[in-house]
């Protein structure tokens, strides 16, 4: 017999196998999910969820697809949270501190409560990456926030109304576009291709009889 636990979905009790994730427990209980379920594997941030285990004062947050049920768990999903997403033209903005001031000035109202970090479903140091953004250190903000799945839980906890995932998104794009070292071999190759330098090689290969291509493939040298 499977080990069963009680979970309370939106306050209503269901008995479900203890091995299930919250997401699968909801389905076991009979929910056909539409919202709050995207990748089912911890990448898309669709399944932000709040829970409290009976007797515990702490309100916890998690990704429903990544978290196993516990006995007496009270669960409420948060499938949408109204983040502020500013609109900008990446070609027009510059990787300067002033950008944040213009687009996301609320980050300067951070009171340092660290509720964002405590709530992060990915275990990121959210308050720290916001601090980097405040200073205009986009490379550090990008690095620190890289694993963000933009579930929005941090923002739901923020007394200053900061949309942390969107701030980090901007920092990463600024870093990727302007600050990361330029790649010479890539630029070179794009130029060579535009110039038609590889056409002959490719056409030669494509023009060969299939048996010959097979030979070439089966005996091609493989880089160590």
């Amino acid at each position, binding site marked *: 017999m499977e080990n069963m636990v009680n979970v309370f979905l939106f306050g209503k009790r269901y008995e479900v196998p203890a*091995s299930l*994730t919250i997401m*699968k427990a909801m*389905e*076991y209980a*009979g929910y*056909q*999910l*539409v*919202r709050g*379920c*995207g*990748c089912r*594997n*911890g*990448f*898309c941030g*669709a399944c932000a969820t709040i829970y409290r285990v009976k007797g515990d004062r702490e309100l916890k947050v998690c990704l429903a697809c*990544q*978290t*196993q049920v516990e006995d007496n768990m009270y669960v409420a999903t948060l499938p949408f949270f109204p983040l502020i*997403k500013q*609109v900008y033209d*990446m070609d027009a903005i510059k990787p300067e501190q002033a950008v944040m001031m213009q687009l996301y000035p609320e980050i300067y109202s951070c009171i340092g409560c660290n509720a964002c970090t405590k709530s992060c479903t*990915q275990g990121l140091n959210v308050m720290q990456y916001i601090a980097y953004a405040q200073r205009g250190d986009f490379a550090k903000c990008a690095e620190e926030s*890289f*694993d963000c799945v*933009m579930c929005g839980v941090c923002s739901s906890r923020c007394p200053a109304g900061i949309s942390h995932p969107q701030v980090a998104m901007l920092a*990463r*794009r600024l*870093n*990727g*576009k302007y600050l*990361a*070292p*330029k*790649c*010479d*071999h*890539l*630029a070179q*190759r*794009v130029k060579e*291709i535009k110039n038609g330098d*590889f056409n002959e*090689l*490719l056409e*030669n*290969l*494509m023009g060969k009889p*299939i048996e010959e*291509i*097979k030979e*070439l*493939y*089966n005996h*091609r*040298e*493989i*880089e160590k």
Partner: protein
Amino acid sequence: MYTSEMLESIKKVEARRKENAATEPRRMTAEEKDALLRAYHPDYKEGAEFVNLAVGPNKGEKVPKELGALLQGNSRVQPGDVDLNAPDYDVDVLIIGGGGAGASAAIEADKAGAKVMVVTKLRMGDANTMMAEGGIQAADKPNDSPAQHYLDAFGGGHFAAKPELLRTLVTEAPEAIQWLSDLGVEFDKAADGTMITTHGGGTSRKRMHAAKDYSGAEIMRTLRDEVLGRGIPVVDFTAAIEIIKDENGRAAGAVLMNMETKELLVAKAKTVILATGGAGRLHYQGFPTSNHYGATADGLVLAYRAGAKLLYADTLQYHPTGAAFPEQIFGALVTEKVRSVGAMLINRDGEAFMHPLETRDVSAASIIRECSTRGKGVPTPGGVGVWLDTPMIEMKNGAGTIEKRIPAMMRMFGKYGIDIRKEPILIYPTLHYQNGGIDITADCQSGVENLYVAGEAVGGIHGRNRLMGNSLLDIIVFGRNAGRNAAAKAQGVKAAKLTLSHVEAFKEELKAAGVETDTVSPQLLPDYRRHK
């Protein structure tokens, strides 16, 4: 976390780790691979796993039975349900599917000046693209060339790719990487800007570019940000359920359904781009899947009913390394990058039974053989698996490698108390990718005029098997091309009367062929509710 039986086996893995790490198993010969695939790969089964289509452009050809049922299913729209003369949306280019291909297409069509709209079934980015971990290929290093990339992909796909499509893929690859970089995608680079590239299964050069093991997420969230930044309208939680044509037989819009309220809407368009992705959630042959929740082959169903031909719809990719344990993540992807950076496949007795970087189909078949006829698998609650020896990675490349190069994997197993730096993990093949799909010409158009296709919904770019890193590449290359071409074509399209008569005609064809079914399609979502 591991059972005592598993722990016993781990001891054997540990005992031989050093020796295994020091030897490179021989790669199989072409003949060995061929025999292995025939005997063990799910695509090569010749029983009730497949059906022959009774109607439509691919009549007589075999497809997985689950797909066959949907292709020959009943429409969700009855005549009279919608008023085609009073469209709710009227745009130049309608893009169906908000994954990487759809987003790339939207950006380029918008750049070309077209009035664009994206409709997507879940949220934008709730898509297979978001989940890609390993990376994206492009021949941009001095020791590499588009021709070398072509050879790898052509051979890996069993010489079945459409040459003109594959040529476009490899030739436009470096530019695709540059385009993404310019949008702000953060690729792994050395301090001097050199791309950090690795091998993938079946590559002859190290040309796999990555953004840690969040490659797809990094690409997808950046593309999404750009789509929103451009002010392109995105209608989410809205599925396309039928292509609308004009009276001249050209694609001219789609019937949409609000996923929550079930309200039906009409979108009129001059050209349509299908970017609906794959089919993992159809669970062919009972396999678990690595795919997102909405991967149900809807695009194939819509296009087929509208008269577009499919290509290689019988070939699927079973990724060799799906998680086999713990059961909470059963079927979830363990990226190939784990093997790229040094982990080997090890059986119950601690033997490295194959080269870790054979092509995916060969690797999957080899694992299935190990676990079935050879009886060298490790039993799990959900089935059986073999080891992927992750501690070997740091043995070869030094401490810290795992956290730096594959943090998502470390996190995924860490949540269940498995530290992949110290313990190996159990894997088994999982349904991963739809190799086949809608047949297109070099301009991305399907057999139906003005119906463009991009991304995983396309068949023929990769042939009968796809190499890791060539799919993220194809969604960018062909997504962009589809966007540009659909925008250009839209300029010359004259409005004509809209119709769903092809849906009626298809129904008649089914009747004439004696196909009777209760199946309604497209499926839109899987149903995982417990049915008592």
